[in-house]
């Protein structure tokens, strides 16, 4: 076993070991130190050359996802440390930390594993490890949202198992690198496999009409979990779908994917203007981002680079948006947009992070999501998919305008001279601010030629 393989094993083992902190009394401090350690290991793992390593593989897409998973995980652990300070049952908080570590392990496993069957299992395991993260306060709405999440996502993923069976039937192996590198001629069986993968993994990604769990889970989860769900879990599922797509590609399949992606964008454009809950609003924005990421991945060429840029900006930008939403919930005690006014005076730092993260996730310049969207549109024009370009541009415009209108109203409306700055823990403010800063810094990563 070479050092690169050992490094991948270490990357996977660390969060598992951290999850054992449930059995001690230092879960918070262990979580903080451990998550920083994990982020450092992930950065060191960037030095691993692309290729196959025992049961794993490192490619240009999953190495970027591994980094974003590790950093968002670190931010989330720090955010949780103060966000849940007033929790009634400390036992629940220990379990919460422990499950967060396991959740990260399942995501990293899914990204690194080279076997389509085990990839499916990894994604299914993310559901099992994350469902209980939604119910830290054991409230009625949280339990109902978690139930819908478990049931809808698991049911959808079960259909994706058909795809695994059909790929195994056709190739007699589940090794993803061998299958994708060998290439294939389009066939009916593989098109069916790709379509079932779309329905199955599309449920997890939030592709319309299988998305129904997504706004509920994102809306009711604690903010750091919403950040992890939106910023890293869904892109991990999109990565898995991308690998299945490469293994089953055909012209007909591309059209099927395109129809579902565009339907998702149209759906979000229709529902976004009527959103009344800040977290549900960002959940629908996540659907838009995921649709664009999937669109970029399947289009290929420059669009693939565009997708990678959106993955990174979305990971940090959306995390920042959910952290800011959590801070707003602490200040105002509500998630209703109509009840949130005068944020600029009440919490200038939260107003700043909310505004910047909203600009990042809507693809406004100078954030890299703008460049990413531009590259995807450029590639679509080059491919002659003009109808797709038209629908995408119109939907992005409507979604961005709707989201920014609601955000600016919350920040700039209702400010008076009598407003007092609300007290908010520094860690929460810093984590939200840092996320946005990371989202912004992706432009330098891109300009520096690292992507």
């Amino acid at each position: 076993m070479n050092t690169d393989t050992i490094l991948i094993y270490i990357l996977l083992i660390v969060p598992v070991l951290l999850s054992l902190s449930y059995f001690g009394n230092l879960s918070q401090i262990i979580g903080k130190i451990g998550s920083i350690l994990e982020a450092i290991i992930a950065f060191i793992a960037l030095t691993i050359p692309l290729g196959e390593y025992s049961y794993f593989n490192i490619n240009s897409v999953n190495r970027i996802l591994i980094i974003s998973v590790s950093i968002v995980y670190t931010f989330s652990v720090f955010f949780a440390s103060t966000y849940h300070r007033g929790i009634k049952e400390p036992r629940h908080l220990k379990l919460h930390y422990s499950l967060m570590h396991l959740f990260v392990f399942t995501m990293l496993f899914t990204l690194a594993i080279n076997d389509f069957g085990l990839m499916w299992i990894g994604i299914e395991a993310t559901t099992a490890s994350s469902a209980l993260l939604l119910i830290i306060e054991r409230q009625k709405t949280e339990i109902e949202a978690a139930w819908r999440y478990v049931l809808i996502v698991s049911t959808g993923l079960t259909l994706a198992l058909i795809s695994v069976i059909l790929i195994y039937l056709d190739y007699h192996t589940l090794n993803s690198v061998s299958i994708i590198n060998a290439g294939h001629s389009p066939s009916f069986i593989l098109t069916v496999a790709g379509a079932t993968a779309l329905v199955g993994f599309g449920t997890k990604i939030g592709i319309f009409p299988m998305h129904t769990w997504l706004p509920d889970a994102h809306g009711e989860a604690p903010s750091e979990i919403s950040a992890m769900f939106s910023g890293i879990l869904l892109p991990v599922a999109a990565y898995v779908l991308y690998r299945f797509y490469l293994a089953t590609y055909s012209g007909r399949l591309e059209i099927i994917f395109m129809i579902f992606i565009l339907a998702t964008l149209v759906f979000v454009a229709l529902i976004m203007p009527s959103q009344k809950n800040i977290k549900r609003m960002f959940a629908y924005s996540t659907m838009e981002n995921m649709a664009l990421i999937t669109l970029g991945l399947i289009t290929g060429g420059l669009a693939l680079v565009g997708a990678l840029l959106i993955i990174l900006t979305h990971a940090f930008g959306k995390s920042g948006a959910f952290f800011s939403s959590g801070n707003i919930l602490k200040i105002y005690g509500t998630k209703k947009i109509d009840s949130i006014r005068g944020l600029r005076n009440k919490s200038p730092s939260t107003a700043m992070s909310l505004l910047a993260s909203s600009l990042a996730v809507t693809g406004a310049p100078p954030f890299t999501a703008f460049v990413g969207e531009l590259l995807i549109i450029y590639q679509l024009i080059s491919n002659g998919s003009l109808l797709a370009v038209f629908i995408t541009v119109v939907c992005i415009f409507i979604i961005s305008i709707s989201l920014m209108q609601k955000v600016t109203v919350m920040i700039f409306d209702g400010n008076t001279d009598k407003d007092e700055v609300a007290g908010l823990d520094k860690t929460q403010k810093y984590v939200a601010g840092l996320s946005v800063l990371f989202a912004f810094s992706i432009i330098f990563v891109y300009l520096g030629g690292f992507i």
Partner: protein
Amino acid sequence: MIPLSEIYDFIATMMLFVAIWAQIGSYVITKIEVIVIQTTFLAIYAFISGLATLNYDLIILAFLIIFIRGMLTAYILLKKFPERRSLIREKSTTVPSIIIVSIIILIATLIIYRLTIYQFAPSPITAIGFVIAIQGLLLIGTRKNKITQFTGYIEEENAMILLSLGIFPLPLVVEISVLLDVLALVIVAAVLLSGNLASEKLEELMG
């Protein structure tokens, strides 16, 4: 001597009848019994198939199916029932119409199967697996009781194993991991099943 293929067809058909039985009646306890019976049939199928082909992976799989899904899962779900569990009924009054819908969907599923999967997997076992999967989805989509919904999910998972056995058995490590994954979900679901067993419409979860 009865041909082996007929034994397989018989077992798969019994699994299908059990899936239809799950749609009938409104006592929730029946749904768990249905899952135990269906899982037992699935385990018998895997066991016979393993013996016939001398594939020890399938024999191991058969024992794991009966232990993990037949016994452990049923036990965990039964523990979630309050006292006098045999008397708990679903609140839905649409059960009779669901049965009719179930039969119509069964026929529609077979037609879809004939037009799609049949082209590369022309086996009655695969057809039945496909039909059971859709019946499981129907059970989830039409019922409000969470235990019934979850048994629909288990039924769907059973259907996937049957599909896999009918088309091309997956490697044992994948099959075992699938079983363990489902077990983990059962444990998670058991936690979420505490309190009200009916799925609710909540204002906060709308829009």
